[in-house]
């Protein structure tokens, strides 16, 4: 089942039933139409056509998905894998997609479940394994040492520090607050959409959002 890995954030509410209780969700869009086509092709056994159409769907959603995963995981490679896994999962479970509902909500739900699972696995690993030096950071440091036309080294350093501070502050939020904040603020989801994605009540979503903003302001002080 798709929601087999759902944790406390996404309680035992089947994917299909979440949106049923929210009839005011945006009408199915182009992505939903493409997903419906993929589903039909698979049903007809035309896997090549299904793959082609799914490629188009990936192209439309992957930038947004990568942003969300990156803000959740704060690691490019991890985010990349989470996005890949989510799309593969969507394709293999496309039969359970309901054409009359927005594909984006369904997909985001799967993606966030994957990200949360990865975060848990990372915490488990961190308890037992001493982290090795970050190769990517090293490469990035080398790339940044090469003169470029972009911002000055001081500006880059300040920007990086600020981003680290923000990421650290967002990371300190409780899981639900963080999820709601990332979806509402970074992804621009409405509280209704976040409610459909997370399975939380709409008013609960708003409460989590305000608490998250308040906590971030106290953590970041003058920066926010």
């Amino acid at each position, binding site marked *: 089942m798709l929601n087999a890995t759902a944790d406390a954030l996404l309680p035992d509410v089947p994917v299909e039933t979440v949106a049923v209780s929210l009839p005011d969700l945006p009408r199915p869009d182009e992505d939903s139409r493409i997903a419906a086509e993929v589903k039909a092709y698979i049903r007809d056994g035309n896997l090549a056509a299904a793959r082609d159409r799914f490629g188009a769907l990936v192209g439309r959603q992957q930038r947004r998905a990568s942003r969300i995963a990156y803000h959740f995981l704060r690691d490019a490679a991890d985010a990349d894998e989470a996005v890949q896994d989510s799309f*593969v999962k969507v394709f293999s479970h496309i039969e359970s997609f309901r054409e009359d509902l927005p594909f984006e909500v369904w997909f985001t739900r799967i993606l966030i479940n994957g990200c949360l699972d990865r975060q848990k696995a990372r915490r488990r690993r961190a308890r037992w394994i001493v982290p090795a030096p970050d190769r990517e950071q090293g490469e990035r440091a080398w790339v940044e040492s090469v003169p470029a036309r972009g911002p000055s080294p001081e500006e880059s350093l300040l920007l990086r520090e600020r981003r680290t501070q923000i990421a650290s502050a967002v990371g300190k939020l409780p899981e639900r607050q963080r999820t709601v904040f990332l979806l509402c603020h970074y992804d621009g989801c409405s509280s209704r959409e976040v409610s459909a994605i997370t399975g939380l009540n709409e008013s609960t979503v708003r409460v989590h959002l305000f608490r998250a903003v308040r906590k971030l302001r106290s953590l970041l002080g003058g*920066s926010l």
Partner: protein
Amino acid sequence: MERFHPADDRLIALYFGDEGAGADERRAVRQHLHGCESCTWRFTELTAPLERLRQDAASEADEVFTPARLDAQRARILDRLDQGSHGSRLIPFPASRARLDRSVVRRPITRWVAAAAAAGLLLGVMAGRVLEFGTGRTVAPTPVVREARDTLIAPRLVSNSLMTAAGAEYDEAMISEIEQAVQSQRIAALSALDQMTPHVRQEAVVARVMR
């Protein structure tokens, strides 16, 4: 205009496009903002950093996920679909699936047994050490151990002591050791083979004469 100034949460809700509040309420807050300078300033103060944060977050992610990286990601996803990858799975080899399942179920028990055995061994060794230390008693070597010690360790000790003696004494002792070794029965049996084998010393003499 609203009678009371809207709270921070209301202003933040307005920024996030809060659909929870009624349309009338939202309209009233907006109208209030148009007429109240301090609330407009407060709204800007509250939301401008949030907006900066959002834009910065988007640009940060876009710096990491360049178009080339997204293309590669898409290609990998399609590759995985082609391979029919549905995540990692265990392949029961060479045992049958039933046996594999059973071993998986029994695994925690065997792990406990192994852990208990290791702990018991460790406790036993430690207890032995403690008892030995407490009584100050040493274990007497058995005759076999004593004999082995005399034959194996003693010559080495003799050789070591000879190394510290004067050079001539050391050389003589070493030569006599070699002679004794050559005359021993086992070495004598190999003397025929030794004669058939060219020696380095002889070869060196021949080479010198040829030169």
